[in-house]
């Protein structure tokens, strides 16, 4: 490359350059600069195949000399004159000229063939002609041949002679199979000098490939660079070229060897070997790989390598070290060359021109650009001498040697140029560039958070004007290293013209730039991706990988992280954020001879036991999906990626690589749809928009299922060095965490696994670096005194009642149970509704066991959502709603649920099941089912939820402590809850079990009973006038023991009966001898209760009650049951499938008359009550007189629940006589 002014553009090279971005190197023991070789081989075309004939057309136009016809020129081939071609005229000037040249005149095809045979062999065939009449066609079978040239020298006897005719040669076909290309570049920083020892390039061609010629140039044929002599040996199987002279850094020796594929070729890869030796550089041998294929050569990458090198060319492998340079070579697939004697006239038919380049660098290979000088874009673009630009030498960061073809004056060229550090554009961490023939090549960089934070160098929209063929680009590990002084900047490395002087810039620092990975497990992986211009964007990408070595010496990589961690609140059991800091020393990062400190691959941070997730934070929180995360870009605005509502903290990361600080947020990942498939995961997103840096890291949060202890794990952290990480988890009312429940000192334990571990995925205990940070909890909840450590206090609150308390009205019943922070957790509770507050079960279905089981089974990742979408229990079993508030602090997270009626449970005939789809914010904790036995006091009909027969309240769900603080129940099914008709002051009572000191142990549970006053209103407006009929059925004579039938009928709208007292007539004696047995209370309550265990002999009658509350009547036996009264009680044990009621009557006498008093009649509506006492041998009543004689009246006294009294004396009817008479004779006697 001799031309001083070139206006070509290089696209391809760029690619190589890209690598630079951020790589590493090794601390180099200081040594002198030295030359060494990089050898790249290939072929044009890349796909070699059967040889073609060389075909050339020679056209001769007649000329004149001194007015007479004269046409003659030397035939020149390969630097040799072979004869003289022309056409004779009348004056025979042509012969004279040829004679002057020393050759006979050749005019015909045969004569020309004879002239060419010595050079092209006997196979050459020439047809056409004679000269000036028809063109000649020269054919050399299956062999490449040089272009036949013609030279017309000054004809000595004719001083005015300029030309005799015009001779033109067109190479119609080069011939042969193509050309082998060998480029040996001195990529060291010292001149290669072969003055004492001749440089030799020997190509031992692969078998099946035969060289038919060879030629080479050195240093682009720059002035003063010695020639390269080549010869074909061993019947074309070996080519040897020699060079004596000096070759400056990043200058190349380019060898071209015309070859033909011999024999019957088949598609294959053939291997030869190229050895470069001699001079003052170490010999270099490379494998020569040639592709034999009949296919047209496609766009692609013929050769790619990327090596991190030490001085002298050895691979740099010291983990955390700073290498001498990163050298990348790239050569594209080539088309067939059209040869010419003059390199400037040669051409090549490339398959396509490259457009965009990407060079992913190995993870962990980084560069520190913060302290490096830069070349301003203005200087970079300002042309200076000899097609250079105005960048200062101190901004040089490497050098490149670029092969390109520019049709016209330049043709093929491979100049060496400096590579400069440029100011990064907005959105880039670093930028580099170089210019070739005034064409700027800019290498942008980016960091790919999705690929282990690899640095990716890119060149976009490379120029097509110079056709890029290949390049070698070196980025220095320590740009200020004096060993690069011979190749720093235009004055040193550029060998065209006189671009300037070569001297070290004053004050140039020696900070390291490249840093090698700090992990020794994975070989370095390089790559290149290139897409061409001739196809639509992104439709064709050529790729090539290159594997480098793995690092070594990881045991010398120091690793000394420091952590600080403390909650934002020092109050026990209170909402709190967390301030977490991580500091990493980076002393060796910039010191060129030092080993950089290692980075953490994995950080596992365990919060102390007791510091748990605060459910309060879930309200309004959403999850960041993987799609959201994917939308995060370095320049995306808040909310464009992860929703702002998923943010739970802030993040600041300072890296020594850049001046800017990365800032970002911590987001909650969408549960179960995160990289871990876990309930809790975090996304750490930090950005430096102006540098295009985006850090995205997913972290797993594990919550111990029994203690709730939180452990956060960030794995596969980038090997990119950082100085500090500051993470602040949200504080305030909806803070992320809850502080431990007691005062004292606590430790946050961080365990680091360095990348430098022998196997970072399975580190030994010795390799794991633990760090702790202590903090103290100093006060109690709200700043009060520290918890004593004994059982916490427990003062639950209860608010309950119907919304509308009008007597005998249906109204929703609401209940709310609360507790304060710092108190014992709820474990269970019972609720006893006010007397008379009852539910109308008629028409209500129950949720079946199978349906409840189905709800309980919904524990999967979307269990709660499934329950929301498709409730397990039938709608007709729905009786209310729940709303559960959990968390600590001023703001709780409320989760709605539903309340269903269900069947028997834990000995109760009814139960209620609260089904709560535990979907709190983004967290789907499945469906929580709490079933509670619903009992009806058989003697008072008071409804109560029995804690002993109920499921415990959940304390911890999937590791998240629930911290239930507000339980609300809304029993709001229309016409379900009925108010009492008694307006006495009463209350709802709840016995709440506190968790004691240990939630897991029921032994220390602490029951506390709380009440909420209740009073129905307007009872006095209710009427009260029940009716009673009494009948004695059976014998009417004295001594007979008839059956007694009593029917009580209540008026609609009346107050319920509170007390019923009936005194039988004097005529009714107790038949004491018929008292067979009495049911003891123990017997009565045994078994299923309600008389099931009573002996048959204790049954004295039966009873039935009809109530609008149930679909079925309550009915059952009437027993004599032992009591605390003087006499046994008369108990009507009424049963239904949903409730049992015992109407307990106290038996006494009024002046010897049998009197029964139902004192505590439940405050429930009963439309009809029928009592039938047995007669005959089982009858307790004996007539002391003939009851058909006289009048026999009972005394009835009823008291309404509203206090109203209704007394009357109903006649006791009896069947007296028979037939019509009997009817008439029904006695009404006293």
């Amino acid at each position, binding site marked *: 490359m001799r031309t001083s002014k070139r206006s070509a553009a290089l696209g391809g090279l760029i690619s190589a350059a890209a690598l630079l971005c951020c790589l590493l190197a090794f601390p180099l023991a200081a040594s002198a600069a030295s030359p060494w070789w990089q050898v790249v081989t290939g072929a044009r075309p890349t796909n070699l195949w059967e040889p073609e004939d060389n075909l050339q057309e020679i056209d001769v136009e007649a000329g004149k000399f001194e007015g007479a016809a004269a046409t003659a020129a030397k035939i020149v081939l390969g630097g040799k004159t072979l004869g003289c071609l022309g056409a004779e005229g009348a004056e025979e000037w042509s012969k004279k000229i040829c004679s002057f040249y020393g050759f006979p005149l050749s005019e015909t095809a045969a004569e020309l063939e004879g002239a060419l045979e010595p050079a092209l062999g006997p196979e050459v065939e020439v047809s056409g002609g004679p000269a000036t009449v028809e063109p000649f066609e020269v054919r050399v079978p299956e062999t490449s041949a040089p272009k036949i040239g013609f030279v017309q020298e000054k004809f000595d006897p004719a001083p005015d002679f300029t030309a005799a005719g015009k001779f033109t040669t067109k190479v119609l076909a080069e011939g042969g199979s193509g050309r082998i290309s060998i480029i040996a570049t001195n990529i060291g920083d010292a001149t290669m000098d072969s003055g004492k020892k001749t440089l030799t390039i020997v190509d031992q061609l692969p078998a099946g490939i035969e060289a038919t010629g060879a030629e080479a140039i050195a240093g682009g044929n720059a002035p003063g660079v010695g020639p390269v002599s080549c010869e074909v040996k061993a019947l074309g199987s070996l080519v040897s070229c020699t060079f004596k002279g000096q070759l400056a850094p990043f200058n190349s020796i380019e060898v071209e060897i015309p070859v033909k594929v011999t024999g019957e070729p088949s598609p294959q890869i053939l291997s030869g070997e190229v050895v470069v030796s001699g001079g003052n550089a170490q010999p270099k041998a490379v494998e020569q790989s040639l592709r034999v294929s009949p296919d047209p050569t496609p766009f692609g990458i013929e050769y790619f390598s990327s090596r991190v090198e030490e001085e002298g060319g050895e691979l740099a492998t010291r983990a955390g070290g700073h290498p001498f340079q990163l050298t990348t070579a790239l050569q594209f697939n080539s088309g067939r060359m059209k040869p010419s004697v003059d390199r400037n006239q040669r051409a090549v038919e490339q398959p396509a021109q490259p457009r965009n380049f990407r060079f992913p660098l190995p993870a962990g290979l980084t560069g520190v650009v913060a302290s490096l000088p830069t070349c301003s874009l203005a200087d970079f673009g300002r042309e200076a001498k000899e097609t250079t630009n105005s960048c200062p030498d101190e901004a040089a960061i490497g050098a490149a040697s670029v092969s390109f073809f520019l049709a016209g004056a330049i043709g093929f060229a491979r100049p060496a140029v400096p590579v400069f550090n440029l100011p990064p554009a907005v959105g880039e961490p670093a930028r580099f560039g170089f210019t070739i023939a005034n064409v700027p090549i800019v290498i942008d960089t980016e960091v790919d958070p999705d690929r282990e934070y690899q640095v990716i160098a890119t060149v976009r929209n490379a120029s097509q004007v110079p056709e890029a063929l290949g390049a070698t680009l070196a980025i220095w590990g320590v740009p200020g290293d004096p060993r690069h002084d011979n190749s720093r900047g235009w004055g040193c490395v550029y060998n065209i013209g006189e671009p300037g002087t070569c001297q070290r810039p004053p004050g140039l620092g020696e900070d390291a730039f490249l840093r090698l990975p700090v992990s020794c497990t994975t070989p370095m992986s390089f790559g290149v991706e290139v897409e061409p211009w001739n196809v639509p964007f992104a439709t064709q990408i050529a790729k090539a990988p290159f594997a480098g070595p793995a690092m070594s010496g990881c045991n010398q990589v120091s690793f000394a992280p420091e952590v600080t961690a403390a909650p934002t609140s020092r109050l026990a059991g209170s909402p709190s954020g967390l301030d977490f800091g991580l500091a990493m020393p980076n002393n060796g990062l910039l010191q060129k001879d030092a080993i950089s400190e290692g980075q953490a691959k994995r950080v596992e941070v365990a919060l102390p036991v007791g510091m748990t997730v605060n459910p309060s934070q879930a309200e309004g929180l959403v999850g960041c999906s993987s799609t959201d995360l994917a939308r995060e870009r370095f320049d995306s605005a808040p909310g464009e990626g992860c929703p702002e509502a998923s943010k739970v903290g802030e993040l600041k990361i300072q890296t020594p690589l850049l001046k800017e600080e990365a800032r970002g947020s911590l987001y909650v990942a969408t549960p179960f749809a995160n990289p871990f498939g876990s309930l809790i995961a975090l996304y750490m997103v930090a950005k430096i928009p102006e540098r295009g840096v985006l850090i995205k890291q997913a972290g797993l949060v594990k919550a111990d299922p029994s203690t709730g202890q939180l452990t956060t794990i960030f794995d596969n952290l980038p090997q990119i060095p950082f100085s500090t990480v500051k993470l602040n988890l949200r504080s305030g009312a909806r803070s992320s965490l809850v502080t431990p429940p007691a005062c004292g000192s606590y430790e946050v334990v961080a365990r680091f696994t360095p990348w430098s571990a022998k196997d970072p995925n399975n580190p030994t205990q010795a390799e794991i670096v633990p760090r702790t940070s202590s903090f103290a909890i100093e006060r109690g909840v709200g700043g009060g005194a520290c918890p004593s450590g004994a059982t916490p206090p427990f003062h639950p609150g209860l608010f309950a009642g119907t919304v509308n308390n009008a007597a005998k009205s249906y109204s929703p019943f609401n209940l709310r149970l609360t507790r304060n922070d710092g108190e014992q957790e709820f474990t269970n509770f019972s609720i006893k509704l006010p007397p008379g507050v009852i539910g109308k079960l008629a028409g209500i279905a129950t949720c079946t066991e199978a349906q409840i089981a189905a709800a309980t089974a919904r524990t999967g990742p979307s269990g709660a959502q499934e329950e929301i979408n498709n409730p397990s229990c039938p709608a007709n079993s729905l009786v209310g709603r729940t709303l559960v508030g959990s968390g600590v602090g001023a703001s709780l997270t409320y989760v709605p649920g539903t309340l269903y009626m269900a069947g028997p449970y834990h000995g109760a005939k009814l139960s209620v099941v609260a089904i709560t789809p535990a979907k709190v914010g983004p967290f789907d904790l499945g469906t929580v089912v709490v079933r509670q036995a619903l009992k009806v006091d058989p003697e008072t009909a008071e409804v109560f939820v029995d804690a002993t027969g109920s499921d415990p309240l959940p304390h911890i769900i999937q590791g998240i402590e629930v911290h239930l603080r507000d339980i609300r129940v809304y029993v709001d099914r229309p016409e379900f809850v009925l108010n009492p008709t008694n307006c006495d002051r009463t209350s709802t009572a709840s016995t709440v079990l506190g968790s004691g000191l240990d939630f897991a142990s029921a032994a220390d549970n602490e029951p506390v009973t709380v009440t909420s006053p209740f009073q129905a209103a307007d009872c006095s407006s209710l009427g009260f006038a029940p009716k009673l009929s009494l009948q004695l059925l059976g014998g009417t004579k*004295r*001594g007979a023991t008839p059956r007694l039938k009593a029917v009580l009928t209540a008026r609609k709208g009346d107050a319920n009966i509170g007390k019923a007292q009936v005194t039988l007539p*004097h005529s*009714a*004696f*107790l*038949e*004491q*001898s018929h*008292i*067979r*047995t*009495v*049911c*003891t*209370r*123990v017997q009565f309550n045994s078994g299923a209760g309600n008389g099931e265990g009573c002996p048959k002999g204790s049954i004295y009658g039966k009873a039935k009650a009809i109530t609008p509350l149930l679909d079925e009547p309550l009915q059952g036996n009437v027993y*004599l049951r*032992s*009591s*605390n*009264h*003087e*006499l*046994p009680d008369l108990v009507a044990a009424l049963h239904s499938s949903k409730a049992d009621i015992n109407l307990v009557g106290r038996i*006494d*006498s009024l*002046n*010897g*008359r*049998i009197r029964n008093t139902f004192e505590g009649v439940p405050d429930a509506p009963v439309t009809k009550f029928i009592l039938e006492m047995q007669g005959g041998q089982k009858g307790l009543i*004996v*007539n*002391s007189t003939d009851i058909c004689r006289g009048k026999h009246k009972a005394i009835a006294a009823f008291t309404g629940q509203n206090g109203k009294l209704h007394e009357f004396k109903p006649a006791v009817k009896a069947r007296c006589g028979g037939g019509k008479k009997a009817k008439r004779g029904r006695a009404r006697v006293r």
Partner: protein
Amino acid sequence: MRGRGHLKPKLLVAGLATLVIATSAAATVFQGGGLRITVLGQIQPFKLPRDHLAPVAVFISGHIATVHRSVPPQLQRMVIKVNRHGRLRPQGIPSCTIKQIQPGDTARALANCGDAIVGSGRFWATVVLPEQRPYPTRGRLLVFNGKRNGSPVLFAHIFTSQPFNSSFVITFRIRKIHEGFFATQLTADLPQALGSWGFVDRIKLTLRRKFTDHGRERSYFNASCPAPPGARLTVFPLARGSFYFADRPPITMDVVKGCAVKK
């Protein structure tokens, strides 16, 4: 009911004489196994003829108690054997059936069978039902001469209004025996009459009935004094009572009384 059964009144008289003597002595008491039975018997008049029967009145008081003041065991059967010097003489007294007096209160019993009455008194019992605090009951007691299945019996009609109006009858079956001093036996099964849950505590009874039969004054209860010749006073076994309780062996005790020979 006049004069058929000749029940050897002199035997009864002897027994009654013994009771008479006992007026100056302590009541007969049995105590064992935590049970205490006290029987007090008395005959009037104290002086009785040696060799023929004379009308007497018999006062009987029985008390069953436990030393722990708990409910005594249930008395299920009483068997009373009367000295051969005492005689029951139902001949000439109207006989009553149980249907005439049961059920019914005292007034109704008297209205229906007043002619057959041979004694009266009071009755105390405790009704004990399972798991129930024992409750006391008491009432008037009337003793009627009666027959059942053609045999002479005594009906003890009890009416109580505490707690309820209720009445029942204890039937004493009477039969002759020849067991040493004793020639008449009265047997009563109490549970049948009192119900399964009744526990007799105490009975206080006066048996006395004089009537005129064919113009002659007669007495249902008659006795003579079995003093040996030459002696004015004597002591003799008036009666032997055997008490049968549930779940324990029967207890037998003699009531010994004295009498003086009426000249």
